């Protein structure tokens, strides 16, 4: 499974710690965009709502939560791919896999995810 890499920025739970490097601002935004793309390839309403909630989290919660959100995003993308595969929906599967790959690539490049 994928795991959030929890050595990124900190800051949760303490106002004294929430000065933020601007790169994390950028990373939160990109993650939000990838979640938007994931939402577009989701037909299941419940999962779509989960993705929507994750997106709001990415945009508003402390940056320290981003690794967890990235890992959750990837897990959801993986579930969607599996579902499409089982149902033989190759067109949707391909689109989902593309987004899944983008999340993984961005997440690992940004240090949010490790692939163990």
């Amino acid at each position: 499974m994928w795991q959030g890499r929890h050595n990124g920025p900190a800051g949760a739970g303490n106002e004294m710690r929430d000065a933020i490097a601007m790169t994390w601002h950028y990373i939160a935004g990109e993650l939000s965009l990838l979640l938007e793309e994931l939402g577009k390839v989701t037909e299941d309403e419940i999962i779509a709502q989960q993705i929507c909630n994750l997106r709001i989290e990415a945009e508003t919660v402390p940056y320290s939560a981003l690794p967890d959100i990235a890992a959750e995003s990837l897990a959801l993308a993986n579930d969607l791919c599996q579902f499409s595969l089982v149902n033989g929906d190759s067109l949707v599967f391909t689109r989902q896999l593309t987004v899944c790959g983008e999340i993984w690539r961005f997440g690992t490049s940004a240090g949010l995810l490790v692939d163990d």
Partner: protein
Amino acid sequence: MSTEEEQQVSEAQIAVHWREEELYYPPAKFIGQANASDPAILDRFSEENFPECFKEYADLLSWDHYWHTTLDSSNPPFWKWFVGGKLNASYNCIDRHLEKNRNKSAILWAPEPENEDIKSITYQELYHQVNEFAALLRDFCGLKTGDRVTFHMPMVPELPVSMLACARLGVIHSEVFAGFSGASCGGRIADSGSHVLVTMDSYYRSGDLVDHKVKADEAIATAHDLGFDIDKVLVWRRYPGKYGSQAPMVEGRDFFVDEILKDYKGKIVSPVSMPAEAPLFLMYTSGSTGKPKGCQHSTGGYLSYVAGTSKYYQDIHPEDTYWCMADIGWITGHSYIVYGPLALGTTTVIFEGVPTYPDAGRAWRIAERLGVNIFHTAPTTIRMLRKLGPDEPAKYNYHFKHMTTVGEPIEPEVWRWYHDVVGKSEAVIVDTWWQTENGGFLGSTLPGLQPMKPGSCGPGVLGVFPVIMDEDGNEVEAGSGRAGNMCIRNPWPGILQTIYGQPERFVQVYYEKYCKDRNSKDWRDWPYFAGDGAVKAADGYFRILGRVDDVINVAGHRLGTKELESASLTVPEIAEAAAVPVVDELRGRIVEMYVSLKPGFQPSKEISDKVTKAIETEIGKIARPKNVWIVQDMPKTRSGKIMRRVIAGISNFTDAGDLTTLANAEVVEGIRHHVQSEKLAKGDVPRELSPSEIDEIKAFGSAE
């Protein structure tokens, strides 16, 4: 080994696993043309010349009225720079360049579709576009100096046009990253009190024309729920005359900019002469409470600072073609795509899309096509480009003289790829450290004067005096190898003025920790707490370690949990590792390691000893764990995050806290029994913890 020797070895190694890297010196060709090539500049910006040294930055601008006080520190920490001075940011970025450079490109815009033409906007054309839009904002929207306007705009030239139009009127702009949802935009609209939203119908990203206007409706609904209503929505169209969104236009509220602008053709708006300390823009950034905070940046201090750092650290000359591949929605884009480069009259490149679409060569094709010679991006992007196309840069005929990496530590191996492959071993690199709140760079090498060191950002920039402080406010000496909290001893012109509408929070977040005397009017008593951990080498270069609470403080030595866990994972049998602090009478905190094994291995003392040995070898004896607990499985969330607070609670015999978010809560009791029974048998039970210690243990890992 004595304790002293132990500290010397361990702290240096604890900092990060990167060894001290060799220095890279700038090529003579670069030095020969550099804006800062005379070492005398270092003396001019020495501490004894603070704060007057920043006159040199302010003198890069055109002032309507000169200032009488460079730094007013009478109401700390609400510093006022260049008091009495008046200027206009839009005038400084456009009008003053017209006399000599009216037909020069101010902006080169690269649309994402490669079959669309590059758009060049000269300073003359930018002047007209900004004036016409300023007239529209003033006359159609009724905006006046001091009002706030929210933008939700993608990477199109209309964004800097809108920013500069606001600046021309003294209207405070607040750009929200276009990729953010409408709901987030709505929250920022409400917080800033904007009555006008400027947006775009659509834009390209990764090959798709994204419907963007739909988010405006969501934003307005969210703002309404928060008790705030938008009067007007101005919608730029990606293709003027052709609406690229499915969202309906609301009559009386939504307006196409290209249609209304016809009424303002040729209008000229006199730039409003603004006090130096007047706010220029708000930049929202997430805080720890969940409510984003609006960092308020000034006109005179901010613009001086980004002009100065662009000149000396980006080495921007007016004849350069400069490309910062960030998004204007972030502070990097405000400072180093729009305000800094345009204040210096250079050509700035704006790219609509993502650098990896349609392939990893896209960025280098743009650089080649436009003759970019200064390039600026973030380590995350560098890693992505390296991963997707490690050999792509060599295929394109571009030549950078200077490259920037911004915002997070870059691994030396990635730095070397950036230098050798992207920069073709010709370009200097500045590895810059700063934050949204800072306005501009705080740590960097001066590219023509100071050698580069992979993995280190360099010393404090001109006129900025960083210091590493321990938890008690004592300075950590350079070369001691000890890590601490990165602080800045002095104010600088680019620093945020306040958190919009929350001055108490501003003081608390950035100054309370190390303020020596809250009644003092002396800036020396108000060091700025940056929130990053760092180490200062003997040569004065800083190595940024990341956030300050990713550490366990053992006898004053800050041990990074990442380093402890990485060291444990060098043992072949170990699958996962987690480091936690345990309260200790003698050393304050000690480390305990929790590890799980790969399939096929059984717990044994031999494996525990290997982990201890690995930590001693990789980090030092100071980091030796008191116990290594081999567990069958770690308590984790569904996403795989190890809940360190749970095991920290077990090790400290305190409440493990809420377990409902665990995917495998059943493992907790097994771990508790195993660990606590063994500790009880050894008489190894911590004393009763104080409330603050309990809070610390409960909060451990919440940063992760």
